[in-house]
């Protein structure tokens, strides 16, 4: 049992499941990312935990206590909305001070805390600014300071970088991560961007269509996606269907493949994920290990990506695969015929196609 427990939450809107049997647990001090495309129910789940939305069945527990009868303003959770929802009739100081003033803290203490928060987010000297005249990044930091000011038991962030432009996002993401870790607050973070989730999360819950598809640490998630949906959502494109062979390996259009850890009975239909960085180019006649698969193909497209080159390779039966190659090995050019070798470590078996 964690600090926050979501137990069997169901919510439907007019017969369509927004959330279907969702179970999650979040340890104190950890950051859990709810990752999924728009419409997967992640924001609805966040709003249910906040108490802003009702659930049809299931309960939300915090510190072992059922929250269903506690209204949002008594939960002492902080929430940052996607468009920040700063109060337009208040200046920066009064926005940050809002929760503290509601608690009837002494003006002196309010002032000290507001200043501390503004220092934390790097907005010293902004107290008297009109929030309508702040840049997107400044708004985001005011919103963060405002949510943290009253020391929430749980911080919830709904696409905190969603309304900012790309260049700004990368910089602010790191700032945001540092501030959250510095404060040490237990955090729920909603995003649709897996790179963002990988950067900040202790644990990621990938959501699909109102269900939790996989909950894991970022690295585990990346190394072993639980199903094809998760793999595709994380950006993997080389997914090959196959059948587990009687003797060893998996039969596919690319020939027999030997991914790590086959624990599925022969005859089962499975998907094999081939990592983009997992292939090796060899010359004809060069010997290969029996556990490795050799593929012949033609380079259809070659994209220079800075640190590496991305090749789209058409294999002989007409299958398209995508690989990244380091620059030091002089990657082949477009139209060239190549011979690729895939070792066991380049492949992951994904049991069962959904």
């Amino acid at each position, binding site marked *: 049992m964690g600090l926050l427990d979501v137990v069997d939450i169901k919510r439907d809107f007019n017969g369509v499941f927004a959330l279907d049997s969702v179970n999650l647990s979040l340890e104190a001090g950890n950051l859990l990312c709810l990752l999924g495309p728009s419409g997967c129910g992640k924001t609805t789940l966040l709003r249910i935990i*906040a108490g*802003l939305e*009702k659930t049809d069945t299931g309960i939300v527990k915090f510190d072992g206590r059922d929250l269903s009868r506690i*209204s*949002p*303003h*008594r939960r*002492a*959770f*902080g*929430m940052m*909305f996607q*468009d920040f*929802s*700063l*109060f*337009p*009739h208040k200046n920066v100081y009064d926005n940050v001070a*809002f*929760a503290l003033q*509601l*608690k009837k803290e002494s003006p002196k203490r309010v002032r000290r805390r507001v200043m501390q928060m503004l220092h934390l987010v790097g907005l010293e000297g902004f107290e008297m600014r009109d929030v*309508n005249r702040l840049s997107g990044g400044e708004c985001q930091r005011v919103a963060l300071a*405002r*949510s943290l000011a*009253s020391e929430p038991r749980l911080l919830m962030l709904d696409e905190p970088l969603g309304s900012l432009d790309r260049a700004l996002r990368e910089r602010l993401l790191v700032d945001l991560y540092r501030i959250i870790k510095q404060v040490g607050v237990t955090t729920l973070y909603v995003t649709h961007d897996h790179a963002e989730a990988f950067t900040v999360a202790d644990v990621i819950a990938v959501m699909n269509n109102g269900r939790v598809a996989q909950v894991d640490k970022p690295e585990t998630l990346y190394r072993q996606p639980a199903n094809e949906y998760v793999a595709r959502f994380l950006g993997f494109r080389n997914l090959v269907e196959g059948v587990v062979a009687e003797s060893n390996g998996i039969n596919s259009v690319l020939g027999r493949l030997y991914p790590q850890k086959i624990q599925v009975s022969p005859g089962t239909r499975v998907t094999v994920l081939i990592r983009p960085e997992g292939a090796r180019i060899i010359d004809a006649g060069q010997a290969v290990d029996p556990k490795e698969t050799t593929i012949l193909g033609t380079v259809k497209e070659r994209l220079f990506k800075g640190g590496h080159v991305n090749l789209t390779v058409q294999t002989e039966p007409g299958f398209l695969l995508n690989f990244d190659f380091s620059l030091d090995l002089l990657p082949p050019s477009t139209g060239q015929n190549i011979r690729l070798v895939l070792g066991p470590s380049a492949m992951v078996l994904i049991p069962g196609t959904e």
Partner: protein
Amino acid sequence: MKHISSKSYALLAALPLVFLAIFYFYPLIKILTVSLTLDETLGFGSLKRLITRGIYLRTLWFTTWQAVVSTILTLLLALPGTYVFARYQFWGKALLRSFTTVPFVLPTVVVAAAFHSLLGPGGLVNAGLMKWFHLTSPPVAIDQTIALILIAHVFYNYTVVLRIVGGYWSRLDPGLTESAKMLGASPGKAFFKVTLPLLSPAILAASLLVFIFCFSSFGVILILGGPRFATIEVEIYRQAIHLLNLPMAAVLSLVQILFTFALMWVYTRLQRSRSMALKPASRAVTQKKADGGIDRLILAANVSFMILFLGLPMFSLMVQSVTTETGVSLGFYKNLFENATESVFFVPPADAVFYSLGFALAALLIALTLGVPAAVFLAGPANRARSLLDPLFMLPLSTSAVTLGFGFILALDKPPLNLRTSPILVPLAHTLVAFPFVVRSLLPALRSIPPKLKDAAAMMGAGPLKVWQTVDLPILGRALVVGAVFAFTISLGEFGATLFVARPQTPTMPLAIYRFLGQPGAANYGQAMAMSSILMLVSAAGFMLMEKFRVTQGEEF
């Protein structure tokens, strides 16, 4: 590229300007001069008497406080309904919104008659209570009391709050309230600390408008208040028509004009500053279906209040119009078209319908003749003349109908403009009231015409007139219909000015209703109900027509 030279543009403005000069500014100047002239017979200036005589101060005081109380009551009763409109989606919402606006477009006389029919001594409520509880006298005795006046004012202005505040509220991001809740604010605290401060400009604007309407209330006070109550408007009428004290009426008119001008000025200023830096949220985000017991209760309570409070007076008006001593019949309607000898008129009431229609048609034609060139002029590229004339053309809007009517009889009854006996005075007065509305309904349509379209037509060899015919006119069509219907219905229901300028032998429908209500007897009362019902249905139909043809969705005034 210029399609119409600036000279011909100036010509467009000339006609409405001349009209306003003769029929608006000249009467106003007349009021000013008469009020400042010393009253020779007594040796005192009317202005001095206004201040020294308690009765006039009391009138001013009553006018103000009833307007304040009416405004507060309207706000208190309409804000919950406004919340419901701003935050919930429900079946029949668009219809209900239109329905709530109907009272606002009803002629004052009809509203007065409707409340009479519901809460008067012989009204539906009293008749019902007497029947059920076997009472011998009507238990609800609020006829000719301030209570009835206040209720009628709320009835009238409910939609002003609903539309102005509601339009603003529905665009207010609900995330703001949710943020406040997440920061520890109870729903009440969130409302008072976040929602209310953000709504305050809209609430202030709506309050000011309601206050202006109630401050210049005439028909409602005259008919429902009886002789005990007089606003400045009513007092102007009494002084001018009953007591023939023109200087005093002029002084009061001056006070009224100054007050409404000042209030309108504040209102326009407020409107300009109201566009606060608020990111408008889309309707889809701000409005939800009512689910859960409390949501449903709030929704049901407000919707039923709206339907009952706004619907009952109109309903009872129609019921009373068909309730005769011999049971349900169209007798009163038939009577309207018979020249009964005991009729209180010099003419049969049916003629009032005829005159009303004639005047309305004339007002429509004059208002469009003036309004179209004025709007075409204003729609041209911005310059100093336009920024000056735009508010000038709107001025009649902030002058009460009674002062307009009074100005007419002061200014237009002797040479060079002796129109006192001419029936044209009535449509002229109505035009003055309708002109700003016509200009305002045409302007958005005119401004929406892309200049490129005109350029394209001109490139293909169309002259300025041809361009106007082929490009502007078709787009303007809808707006013209709206302007025309506006002018027509305003004229049909106009009461304050008509009371001054109409000849006894050419009464309009509102005048006929007023006279019917002032006479004893069930027949007169019934005919008042019948004629009010007709006027109500025509006004409501006109309004529905306008809603259908309106170019921009109207949530503001």
